[in-house]
Protein backbone atom coordinates (compact mmCIF):
# COMPACT_ATOMS: atom_id res chain seq x y z
CA UNK A 1 0.00 0.00 0.00
CA UNK A 2 1.28 3.44 -0.91
CA UNK A 3 2.11 5.85 1.94
CA UNK A 4 0.62 9.20 1.24
CA UNK A 5 2.09 12.43 2.68
CA UNK A 6 -1.03 12.69 4.86
CA UNK A 7 -0.40 9.20 6.22
CA UNK A 8 3.24 10.10 7.07
CA UNK A 9 2.17 13.27 8.79
CA UNK A 10 -0.35 11.35 10.88
CA UNK A 11 2.33 8.82 11.92
CA UNK A 12 4.77 11.61 12.84
CA UNK A 13 2.07 13.33 14.90
CA UNK A 14 1.26 10.04 16.64
CA UNK A 15 4.95 9.52 17.53
CA UNK A 16 5.23 13.07 18.81
CA UNK A 17 2.12 12.52 20.90
CA UNK A 18 3.64 9.35 22.40
CA UNK A 19 6.87 11.19 23.24
CA UNK A 20 4.83 13.98 24.80
CA UNK A 21 2.74 11.58 26.88
CA UNK A 22 5.84 9.69 28.03
CA UNK A 23 7.59 12.92 29.02
CA UNK A 24 4.54 14.18 30.88
CA UNK A 25 4.14 10.84 32.69
CA UNK A 26 7.77 10.87 33.80
CA UNK A 27 7.49 14.48 34.93
CA UNK A 28 4.32 13.79 36.88
CA UNK A 29 5.81 10.68 38.53
CA UNK A 30 8.99 12.49 39.55
CA UNK A 31 7.03 15.53 40.73
CA UNK A 32 4.62 13.48 42.86
CA UNK A 33 7.45 11.41 44.23
CA UNK A 34 9.25 14.57 45.28
CA UNK A 35 6.10 16.07 46.76
CA UNK A 36 5.16 13.05 48.87
CA UNK A 37 8.70 12.34 50.05
CA UNK A 38 9.02 15.96 51.18
CA UNK A 39 5.68 15.81 53.01
CA UNK A 40 6.73 12.64 54.78
CA UNK A 41 10.05 14.20 55.74
CA UNK A 42 8.35 17.31 57.09
CA UNK A 43 5.87 15.24 59.10
CA UNK A 44 8.70 13.24 60.61
CA UNK A 45 10.77 16.28 61.51
CA UNK A 46 7.82 18.16 63.03
CA UNK A 47 6.30 15.37 65.09
CA UNK A 48 8.48 12.35 65.26
CA UNK A 49 11.58 14.00 66.65
CA UNK A 50 9.93 15.53 69.72
CA UNK A 51 10.26 12.35 71.66
CA UNK A 52 13.23 10.89 69.90
CA UNK A 53 16.86 11.17 70.65
CA UNK A 54 19.67 9.96 68.50
CA UNK A 55 21.22 7.45 70.79
CA UNK A 56 24.14 6.69 68.51
CA UNK A 57 27.69 6.95 69.71
CA UNK A 58 28.56 10.23 71.42
CA UNK A 59 30.52 12.68 69.24
CA UNK A 60 34.22 12.22 69.64
CA UNK A 61 37.33 13.35 67.89
CA UNK A 62 36.87 10.44 65.54
CA UNK A 63 34.11 12.35 63.81
CA UNK A 64 36.70 14.22 61.83
CA UNK A 65 37.91 11.04 60.17
CA UNK A 66 37.14 10.75 56.47
CA UNK A 67 34.24 8.51 55.50
CA UNK A 68 34.86 4.81 55.29
CA UNK A 69 36.06 3.93 51.77
CA UNK A 70 33.78 1.90 49.56
CA UNK A 71 34.29 0.60 46.04
CA UNK A 72 37.73 2.15 45.88
CA UNK A 73 40.95 0.21 45.42
CA UNK A 74 42.29 -0.12 48.96
CA UNK A 75 45.95 0.15 48.03
CA UNK A 76 45.39 3.68 46.65
CA UNK A 77 43.85 5.06 49.86
CA UNK A 78 45.67 6.49 52.84
CA UNK A 79 44.05 8.20 55.79
CA UNK A 80 45.27 10.49 58.52
CA UNK A 81 43.52 10.84 61.84
CA UNK A 82 41.82 14.17 62.45
CA UNK A 83 43.23 14.42 65.97
CA UNK A 84 46.88 14.03 65.01
CA UNK A 85 47.59 15.65 61.69
CA UNK A 86 51.33 15.21 62.15
CA UNK A 87 51.05 11.44 62.42
CA UNK A 88 52.37 9.38 59.57
CA UNK A 89 49.68 8.24 57.18
CA UNK A 90 48.75 4.64 57.44
CA UNK A 91 47.33 2.43 54.78
CA UNK A 92 43.71 1.50 55.10
CA UNK A 93 44.59 -2.10 54.56
CA UNK A 94 46.51 -2.20 57.82
CA UNK A 95 44.53 0.34 59.88
CA UNK A 96 41.56 -1.03 61.78
CA UNK A 97 38.25 0.28 60.57
CA UNK A 98 36.15 2.36 62.91
CA UNK A 99 33.29 0.60 64.56
CA UNK A 100 30.04 2.23 63.63
CA UNK A 101 26.67 1.79 65.26
CA UNK A 102 23.46 2.70 63.58
CA UNK A 103 21.46 5.35 65.47
CA UNK A 104 18.80 3.85 67.67
CA UNK A 105 15.73 5.95 68.44
CA UNK A 106 14.94 6.10 72.15
CA UNK A 107 11.54 7.22 73.39
CA UNK A 108 11.78 9.69 76.26
CA UNK A 109 8.80 9.30 78.52
CA UNK A 110 7.54 12.35 80.39
CA UNK A 111 7.11 10.69 83.74
CA UNK A 112 5.18 12.52 86.43
CA UNK A 113 7.43 13.87 89.20
CA UNK A 114 8.02 11.38 91.99
CA UNK A 115 8.42 12.07 95.70
CA UNK A 116 11.75 10.72 96.96
CA UNK A 117 13.62 10.52 100.26
CA UNK A 118 16.66 12.77 100.73
CA UNK A 119 19.34 13.13 103.37
CA UNK A 120 20.35 16.66 104.32
CA UNK A 121 23.64 17.65 106.00
CA UNK A 122 24.40 17.75 109.72
CA UNK A 123 25.07 20.58 112.15
CA UNK A 124 26.85 23.68 110.88
CA UNK A 125 29.29 23.81 113.81
CA UNK A 126 30.21 20.13 113.93
CA UNK A 127 33.90 20.98 113.99
CA UNK A 128 36.64 21.38 111.46
CA UNK A 129 37.07 17.65 110.97
CA UNK A 130 33.50 17.27 109.83
CA UNK A 131 33.20 17.73 106.07
CA UNK A 132 30.76 20.37 104.89
CA UNK A 133 27.39 18.82 104.08
CA UNK A 134 25.94 18.54 100.64
CA UNK A 135 23.65 21.52 100.07
CA UNK A 136 19.91 20.90 100.14
CA UNK A 137 19.60 23.35 97.23
CA UNK A 138 21.80 25.77 95.33
CA UNK A 139 21.18 29.37 94.37
CA UNK A 140 22.38 30.63 91.02
CA UNK A 141 21.22 32.27 87.81
CA UNK A 142 17.82 30.84 86.93
CA UNK A 143 18.12 27.48 85.11
Amino acid at each position, binding site marked *: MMKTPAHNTRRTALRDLRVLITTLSLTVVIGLWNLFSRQAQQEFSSTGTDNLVNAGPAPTGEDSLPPLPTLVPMEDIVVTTGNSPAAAPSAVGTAPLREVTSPTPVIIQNRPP*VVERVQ*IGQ*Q*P*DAGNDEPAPKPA*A*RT*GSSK
Partner: protein
Amino acid sequence: MLQIRFRAMGCAIQAILDADSPAVARSLEMVPIWFEEWEQALSRFRPDSELNQLNRSADRITPVSRALWEVLDAAFQAFKESSGLVTPALLDALILAGYDRSFDQLALNGPAVSPSPGLPLFSLEDIERDPRTQSVRLPAGLRLDFGGVAKGWATHQAADRLAQLAPALVSAGGDISVSGSRSDGNPWPVGVEDPRVTGGQIELLALHAGGVATSGKDYRRWLQDGIWKHHILDPRTGRPSASDVLSATVIAPTLPEAEMAAKTVFILGSAEGLRWLEERPALDGLLVLEDGSLRHSTRWSRYIWGQSGISPTGFSGSVAPSKA
Protein backbone atom coordinates in the same frame (compact mmCIF):
# COMPACT_ATOMS: atom_id res chain seq x y z
CA MET B 1 12.86 14.19 104.66
CA LEU B 2 10.95 14.04 101.36
CA GLN B 3 11.57 15.88 98.13
CA ILE B 4 9.91 16.39 94.74
CA ARG B 5 11.55 17.81 91.62
CA PHE B 6 10.04 18.90 88.31
CA ARG B 7 10.17 21.69 85.73
CA ALA B 8 7.80 24.65 85.65
CA MET B 9 7.96 28.36 84.80
CA GLY B 10 10.92 27.64 82.54
CA CYS B 11 13.15 26.38 85.34
CA ALA B 12 13.85 23.46 87.68
CA ILE B 13 11.63 23.35 90.77
CA GLN B 14 12.55 21.50 93.96
CA ALA B 15 10.45 21.24 97.11
CA ILE B 16 11.62 19.58 100.34
CA LEU B 17 9.64 18.89 103.51
CA ASP B 18 11.46 17.91 106.70
CA ALA B 19 9.07 15.11 107.59
CA ASP B 20 8.31 11.64 106.33
CA SER B 21 4.74 10.41 106.13
CA PRO B 22 2.17 9.56 103.47
CA ALA B 23 0.39 12.86 104.16
CA VAL B 24 3.61 14.77 103.56
CA ALA B 25 4.19 12.86 100.32
CA ARG B 26 0.67 13.68 99.17
CA SER B 27 1.22 17.38 99.91
CA LEU B 28 4.44 17.38 97.90
CA GLU B 29 2.60 15.80 94.99
CA MET B 30 0.35 18.87 94.97
CA VAL B 31 3.26 21.26 94.35
CA PRO B 32 3.48 20.64 90.55
CA ILE B 33 -0.28 21.25 90.34
CA TRP B 34 0.06 24.57 92.15
CA PHE B 35 2.87 25.68 89.84
CA GLU B 36 0.92 24.63 86.76
CA GLU B 37 -2.01 26.75 87.91
CA TRP B 38 0.22 29.76 88.62
CA GLU B 39 2.08 29.37 85.33
CA GLN B 40 -1.20 29.31 83.43
CA ALA B 41 -2.11 32.61 85.06
CA LEU B 42 1.26 34.35 84.99
CA SER B 43 3.31 33.13 82.02
CA ARG B 44 3.96 35.35 79.05
CA PHE B 45 5.01 32.32 77.03
CA ARG B 46 1.52 30.79 77.00
CA PRO B 47 -0.71 32.56 74.50
CA ASP B 48 -3.85 31.71 76.49
CA SER B 49 -2.48 32.66 79.91
CA GLU B 50 -4.39 35.17 81.99
CA LEU B 51 -1.45 37.56 81.78
CA ASN B 52 -1.51 37.48 77.97
CA GLN B 53 -5.27 38.03 77.98
CA LEU B 54 -4.70 41.07 80.19
CA ASN B 55 -1.93 42.27 77.87
CA ARG B 56 -4.37 42.06 74.95
CA SER B 57 -7.04 44.05 76.78
CA ALA B 58 -5.33 47.43 76.66
CA ASP B 59 -7.42 50.39 77.83
CA ARG B 60 -10.16 48.09 79.17
CA ILE B 61 -10.96 47.42 82.83
CA THR B 62 -10.28 43.71 83.31
CA PRO B 63 -11.04 41.69 86.45
CA VAL B 64 -8.11 39.40 87.32
CA SER B 65 -7.57 36.30 89.47
CA ARG B 66 -6.23 36.46 93.01
CA ALA B 67 -2.83 35.11 91.89
CA LEU B 68 -2.40 37.74 89.19
CA TRP B 69 -3.61 40.47 91.51
CA GLU B 70 -1.11 39.46 94.22
CA VAL B 71 1.78 39.22 91.77
CA LEU B 72 0.90 42.62 90.34
CA ASP B 73 0.91 43.93 93.89
CA ALA B 74 4.33 42.32 94.50
CA ALA B 75 5.56 43.91 91.27
CA PHE B 76 4.40 47.34 92.45
CA GLN B 77 6.18 46.73 95.77
CA ALA B 78 9.39 45.72 93.98
CA PHE B 79 9.10 48.75 91.69
CA LYS B 80 8.81 51.03 94.70
CA GLU B 81 11.62 49.46 96.75
CA SER B 82 14.01 49.34 93.82
CA SER B 83 13.22 52.94 92.84
CA GLY B 84 11.86 51.69 89.51
CA LEU B 85 14.78 49.42 88.59
CA VAL B 86 12.69 46.26 88.91
CA THR B 87 9.60 46.67 86.77
CA PRO B 88 7.27 44.37 84.84
CA ALA B 89 6.70 47.07 82.21
CA LEU B 90 9.64 46.02 80.05
CA LEU B 91 8.14 43.22 78.00
CA ASP B 92 8.48 44.93 74.63
CA ALA B 93 12.04 46.02 75.40
CA LEU B 94 12.83 42.44 76.42
CA ILE B 95 11.39 41.09 73.17
CA LEU B 96 13.33 43.63 71.13
CA ALA B 97 16.48 42.62 72.96
CA GLY B 98 15.84 39.13 71.59
CA TYR B 99 14.11 37.39 74.53
CA ASP B 100 11.07 36.65 72.39
CA ARG B 101 10.36 33.08 73.49
CA SER B 102 11.03 30.82 76.46
CA PHE B 103 14.74 30.52 77.21
CA ASP B 104 14.76 26.81 76.36
CA GLN B 105 13.63 27.70 72.83
CA LEU B 106 15.89 30.74 72.65
CA ALA B 107 18.95 28.68 73.47
CA LEU B 108 18.09 26.34 70.59
CA ASN B 109 17.15 28.77 67.83
CA GLY B 110 18.39 32.24 68.75
CA PRO B 111 16.30 35.41 68.71
CA ALA B 112 13.91 36.11 65.85
CA VAL B 113 13.88 39.89 66.02
CA SER B 114 16.50 42.57 65.62
CA PRO B 115 17.07 45.36 68.11
CA SER B 116 15.23 48.60 67.52
CA PRO B 117 15.96 51.85 69.34
CA GLY B 118 13.41 54.39 70.43
CA LEU B 119 11.09 52.10 72.37
CA PRO B 120 8.58 53.94 74.57
CA LEU B 121 9.10 53.05 78.25
CA PHE B 122 6.17 52.97 80.66
CA SER B 123 5.97 53.54 84.38
CA LEU B 124 3.80 51.42 86.64
CA GLU B 125 2.05 54.66 87.55
CA ASP B 126 0.33 54.33 84.17
CA ILE B 127 -1.58 51.24 85.36
CA GLU B 128 -4.96 51.68 87.00
CA ARG B 129 -5.94 49.21 89.76
CA ASP B 130 -9.21 48.85 91.60
CA PRO B 131 -8.80 46.72 94.76
CA ARG B 132 -12.55 46.69 95.36
CA THR B 133 -13.28 44.78 92.15
CA GLN B 134 -9.75 43.36 91.82
CA SER B 135 -9.52 44.71 88.29
CA VAL B 136 -6.81 46.31 86.22
CA ARG B 137 -6.61 48.67 83.26
CA LEU B 138 -3.40 48.76 81.25
CA PRO B 139 -2.70 51.79 79.10
CA ALA B 140 -2.52 51.14 75.35
CA GLY B 141 0.94 49.99 74.35
CA LEU B 142 1.93 48.62 77.76
CA ARG B 143 2.33 44.86 78.15
CA LEU B 144 3.47 43.20 81.36
CA ASP B 145 6.04 40.50 82.01
CA PHE B 146 6.34 39.49 85.66
CA GLY B 147 9.46 37.36 85.11
CA GLY B 148 11.33 36.75 88.37
CA VAL B 149 8.66 38.49 90.46
CA ALA B 150 6.12 35.80 89.54
CA LYS B 151 8.62 33.03 90.18
CA GLY B 152 9.59 34.49 93.56
CA TRP B 153 5.95 34.94 94.54
CA ALA B 154 5.04 31.37 93.52
CA THR B 155 8.01 29.85 95.36
CA HIS B 156 7.20 31.83 98.49
CA GLN B 157 3.55 30.76 98.28
CA ALA B 158 4.51 27.08 97.92
CA ALA B 159 6.89 27.24 100.90
CA ASP B 160 4.20 28.94 102.99
CA ARG B 161 1.63 26.26 102.16
CA LEU B 162 4.04 23.39 102.82
CA ALA B 163 5.18 24.96 106.10
CA GLN B 164 1.78 24.12 107.59
CA LEU B 165 2.95 20.49 107.65
CA ALA B 166 6.68 20.72 108.38
CA PRO B 167 9.74 22.92 107.81
CA ALA B 168 9.99 23.45 104.07
CA LEU B 169 12.45 24.55 101.44
CA VAL B 170 11.31 25.39 97.90
CA SER B 171 13.67 26.33 95.11
CA ALA B 172 12.68 27.62 91.65
CA GLY B 173 15.65 27.80 89.34
CA GLY B 174 17.94 28.76 92.21
CA ASP B 175 15.63 31.25 93.94
CA ILE B 176 15.05 29.63 97.33
CA SER B 177 12.45 30.13 100.04
CA VAL B 178 12.97 28.57 103.48
CA SER B 179 10.00 28.46 105.86
CA GLY B 180 11.92 27.88 109.10
CA SER B 181 14.68 25.83 110.74
CA ARG B 182 14.72 22.11 110.15
CA SER B 183 12.92 19.87 112.64
CA ASP B 184 16.13 19.38 114.66
CA GLY B 185 16.62 23.16 114.88
CA ASN B 186 19.49 23.21 112.42
CA PRO B 187 19.60 25.52 109.40
CA TRP B 188 19.26 24.40 105.78
CA PRO B 189 22.56 24.12 103.90
CA VAL B 190 22.27 26.17 100.72
CA GLY B 191 25.07 26.37 98.17
CA VAL B 192 25.93 29.46 96.13
CA GLU B 193 26.86 28.49 92.58
CA ASP B 194 30.07 29.81 91.11
CA PRO B 195 29.18 31.50 87.79
CA ARG B 196 32.84 31.32 86.73
CA VAL B 197 33.07 27.53 86.93
CA THR B 198 30.41 25.14 85.65
CA GLY B 199 29.24 23.06 88.59
CA GLY B 200 31.37 25.04 91.04
CA GLN B 201 30.26 26.39 94.40
CA ILE B 202 31.52 29.60 96.02
CA GLU B 203 29.94 29.33 99.42
CA LEU B 204 27.80 27.11 101.61
CA LEU B 205 25.19 29.08 103.51
CA ALA B 206 23.26 28.19 106.66
CA LEU B 207 19.71 29.46 106.35
CA HIS B 208 17.11 29.19 109.10
CA ALA B 209 14.38 31.11 107.28
CA GLY B 210 13.82 33.70 104.60
CA GLY B 211 14.84 33.78 100.99
CA VAL B 212 17.95 33.78 98.86
CA ALA B 213 18.02 34.72 95.20
CA THR B 214 20.64 35.19 92.51
CA SER B 215 20.48 37.40 89.43
CA GLY B 216 23.15 36.95 86.81
CA LYS B 217 24.04 37.12 83.17
CA ASP B 218 26.06 33.92 83.15
CA TYR B 219 23.23 31.64 81.93
CA ARG B 220 20.24 33.40 80.31
CA ARG B 221 22.12 35.13 77.52
CA TRP B 222 22.09 34.91 73.74
CA LEU B 223 23.89 36.23 70.71
CA GLN B 224 22.03 38.88 68.69
CA ASP B 225 23.64 40.47 65.67
CA GLY B 226 27.05 39.42 67.00
CA ILE B 227 26.51 40.96 70.46
CA TRP B 228 25.90 39.02 73.66
CA LYS B 229 22.60 40.02 75.27
CA HIS B 230 21.12 38.97 78.60
CA HIS B 231 17.70 39.05 80.22
CA ILE B 232 18.18 41.68 82.92
CA LEU B 233 17.20 45.00 81.41
CA ASP B 234 18.02 48.39 82.83
CA PRO B 235 14.73 50.33 82.65
CA ARG B 236 16.72 53.57 82.44
CA THR B 237 17.97 52.55 78.99
CA GLY B 238 15.57 49.77 77.96
CA ARG B 239 18.59 47.62 77.13
CA PRO B 240 20.43 44.74 78.86
CA SER B 241 22.21 46.17 81.88
CA ALA B 242 25.85 47.11 81.28
CA SER B 243 26.68 46.17 84.87
CA ASP B 244 30.16 45.02 85.97
CA VAL B 245 28.45 42.28 88.01
CA LEU B 246 28.38 38.73 86.69
CA SER B 247 26.02 37.48 89.39
CA ALA B 248 24.48 38.94 92.55
CA THR B 249 23.21 36.75 95.39
CA VAL B 250 21.07 38.34 98.12
CA ILE B 251 19.65 36.91 101.35
CA ALA B 252 16.50 38.62 102.64
CA PRO B 253 13.65 38.01 105.08
CA THR B 254 11.48 36.79 102.19
CA LEU B 255 12.21 35.45 98.73
CA PRO B 256 10.34 38.21 96.84
CA GLU B 257 12.52 40.76 98.64
CA ALA B 258 15.68 38.78 97.89
CA GLU B 259 14.69 38.50 94.22
CA MET B 260 14.02 42.23 93.94
CA ALA B 261 17.25 43.11 95.76
CA ALA B 262 19.45 40.75 93.71
CA LYS B 263 18.17 42.29 90.47
CA THR B 264 18.54 45.83 91.79
CA VAL B 265 22.13 45.26 92.94
CA PHE B 266 22.95 43.62 89.61
CA ILE B 267 21.62 46.60 87.63
CA LEU B 268 23.27 49.18 89.90
CA GLY B 269 26.69 47.55 89.54
CA SER B 270 29.16 46.54 92.25
CA ALA B 271 29.99 49.89 93.89
CA GLU B 272 26.52 51.40 93.99
CA GLY B 273 24.91 48.02 94.55
CA LEU B 274 26.93 47.28 97.68
CA ARG B 275 26.16 50.76 99.03
CA TRP B 276 22.45 50.08 98.40
CA LEU B 277 22.72 46.78 100.31
CA GLU B 278 24.57 48.32 103.28
CA GLU B 279 21.77 50.85 103.72
CA ARG B 280 19.33 47.96 104.28
CA PRO B 281 20.24 45.95 107.41
CA ALA B 282 17.78 43.16 106.58
CA LEU B 283 19.65 42.36 103.34
CA ASP B 284 23.03 40.79 102.68
CA GLY B 285 24.71 40.02 99.41
CA LEU B 286 27.58 38.40 97.59
CA LEU B 287 28.66 39.67 94.16
CA VAL B 288 30.81 37.97 91.56
CA LEU B 289 32.23 40.57 89.22
CA GLU B 290 33.01 40.18 85.56
CA ASP B 291 36.73 40.27 86.34
CA GLY B 292 36.23 37.17 88.52
CA SER B 293 36.65 38.92 91.89
CA LEU B 294 34.18 38.62 94.79
CA ARG B 295 32.56 41.38 96.86
CA HIS B 296 30.15 40.95 99.75
CA SER B 297 28.23 43.08 102.22
CA THR B 298 29.74 43.50 105.69
CA ARG B 299 27.32 41.13 107.42
CA TRP B 300 27.49 38.39 104.81
CA SER B 301 29.77 36.11 106.84
CA ARG B 302 27.06 35.44 109.43
CA TYR B 303 25.37 33.15 106.91
CA ILE B 304 28.42 31.10 105.97
CA TRP B 305 28.11 27.47 107.04
CA GLY B 306 30.34 26.58 109.98
CA GLN B 307 31.03 30.17 111.01
CA SER B 308 30.21 31.16 114.57
CA GLY B 309 27.45 33.58 115.37
CA ILE B 310 24.64 31.86 113.55
CA SER B 311 21.55 32.51 115.56
CA PRO B 312 19.42 29.42 116.11
CA THR B 313 16.47 31.39 114.91
CA GLY B 314 18.23 33.25 112.14
CA PHE B 315 15.84 35.09 109.88
CA SER B 316 12.24 34.69 110.62
CA GLY B 317 9.45 35.31 108.19
CA SER B 318 8.10 37.98 110.52
CA VAL B 319 11.18 40.20 110.26
CA ALA B 320 10.18 43.64 109.06
CA PRO B 321 10.59 44.07 105.32
CA SER B 322 13.58 45.95 104.04
CA LYS B 323 13.14 49.67 103.86
CA ALA B 324 12.86 51.29 100.49
